[in-house]
């Protein structure tokens, strides 16, 4: 199918984009990478009257460090972030997760912020945002606000972003020397949507996990923190016993994962348990 007719604009500044988006009411959509929006428009699941291409706005095409955070602008391509020197040095979760995201060809166009704004339940980057407790910056003609990832994701493909707002950047806390991150998933084929996935971020001092954050994706309408698993890991020594304990904690955190044509509840629960155990094994070394 083809999309219905629409007006296409490519503003040269953020303020221009915000003005156009504001006057479009509910009929405007923001185009960044387009790797999720364009298929949605091709299927007519999204039917904006006005498409606002933000790809030509220089101030959105930046990656920089500010106040202990890695700031990734809305226009920055996933492939750029995956290979970016500053990102590799300061936020290893992103390149690790991006290896699993789509394919090289979609990462050449798709953006990190776009993936967060799209909020696909099976996507890796929202889980990274949750596990790292990242924040996003939303701007409109009415002003600017910061939203935590905890508050950002409301449901499947549904976020806190208002019709007249653009997510201008995402802010990820910088890794410390003791940060370890594992991103892993179960998918039918490399690059396919994850049936179940995990982002595990720990603060490892010697063999002790000082702090642990775990987010699962593909198992619920949004990515979810596994708080019982986190509690089971925090303050504990790495080792085989931890693997068993956290597997039980998974069942407590995910009593009813998504049940669909891809996989049933039991499979997803077991998959997450296995991914957690595998991550612990990798950390144990």
């Amino acid at each position, binding site marked *: 199918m083809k999309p219905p007719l629409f007006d*296409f604009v490519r503003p040269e500044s953020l303020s221009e984009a915000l003005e156009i988006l504001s006057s479009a009411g509910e009929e405007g959509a923001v185009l960044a990478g387009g790797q999720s929006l364009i298929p949605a428009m091709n299927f007519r699941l999204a039917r904006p009257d006005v498409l606002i291409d933000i790809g030509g706005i220089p101030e959105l095409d930046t990656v920089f460090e500010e106040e202990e955070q890695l700031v990734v602008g809305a226009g920055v391509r996933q492939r750029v972030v995956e290979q970016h020197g500053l990102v590799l040095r300061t936020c290893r979760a992103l390149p690790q997760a991006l290896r699993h995201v789509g394919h090289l060809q979609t990462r050449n166009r798709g953006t990190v912020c776009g993936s967060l704004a799209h909020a696909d339940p099976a996507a890796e980057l929202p889980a990274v945002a949750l596990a790292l407790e990242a924040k996003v910056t939303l701007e409109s003609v009415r002003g600017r606000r910061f939203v935590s990832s905890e508050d950002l994701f409301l449901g499947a493909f549904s976020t806190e972003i208002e019709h007249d707002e653009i997510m201008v950047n995402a802010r990820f806390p910088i890794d410390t020397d003791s940060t370890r991150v594992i991103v892993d998933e179960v998918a039918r084929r490399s690059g396919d949507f994850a049936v179940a996935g995990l982002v595990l971020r720990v603060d490892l001092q010697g063999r002790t996990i000082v702090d642990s954050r775990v987010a699962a994706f593909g198992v619920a309408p949004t990515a979810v923190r596994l708080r019982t698993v986190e509690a089971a890991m925090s303050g504990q020594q790495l080792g085989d016993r931890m693997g068993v304990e956290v597997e039980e904690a998974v069942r407590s955190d995910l009593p009813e994962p998504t049940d669909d044509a891809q996989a049933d509840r039991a499979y997803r629960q077991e998959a997450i348990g296995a991914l957690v155990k595998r991550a612990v094994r990798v950390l144990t070394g």
Partner: protein
Amino acid sequence: MTSVGSTSNVERPRKSTSEIEVTVNGVREHLVVSNRKLLSDVLRDDLGLTGTHVGCEHGVCGACTVIVDDLAVRSCLMFAVQADGSTVTTVEGLAQDGKWSSMQTAFNEHHGLQCGFCTAGFLMTLSKAEPADYETDAEIRELLSGNLCRCTGYHNIVVAVKAAWGRGATE
């Protein structure tokens, strides 16, 4: 501005079309396109470059892969209007002076294609791959994981790639 493809005097909504300038296979094209047309549609229908194939139209199969501004991308996941000011290479642009690229030759010699529907997409992905980044067969397969082939089972594609890159046939 006249409407796309129309010879009547009826006024159509102007806002749904755009004028673009795009360089395709070295040729600068000036086009008036409907905003809703994908890059794959315009390459095929407006420019007659039907080497780029459309398989799934949602970015998964890779048959539509072309090069835009030096990067391998899905032409079904770009509106043509987004290519304004860009440089595009399609499979028709690989041969030089009527002579196939070494990758095209290798695909031909090593049976890297059967029906050929996916082949243009593979060739374009490979045209931007740095051989030194893909030392093992597993890495080559990972590179090609964004291009689906229903005929060959991929084995001879990998053989062809290694032949083009001057490597031996064994794993």
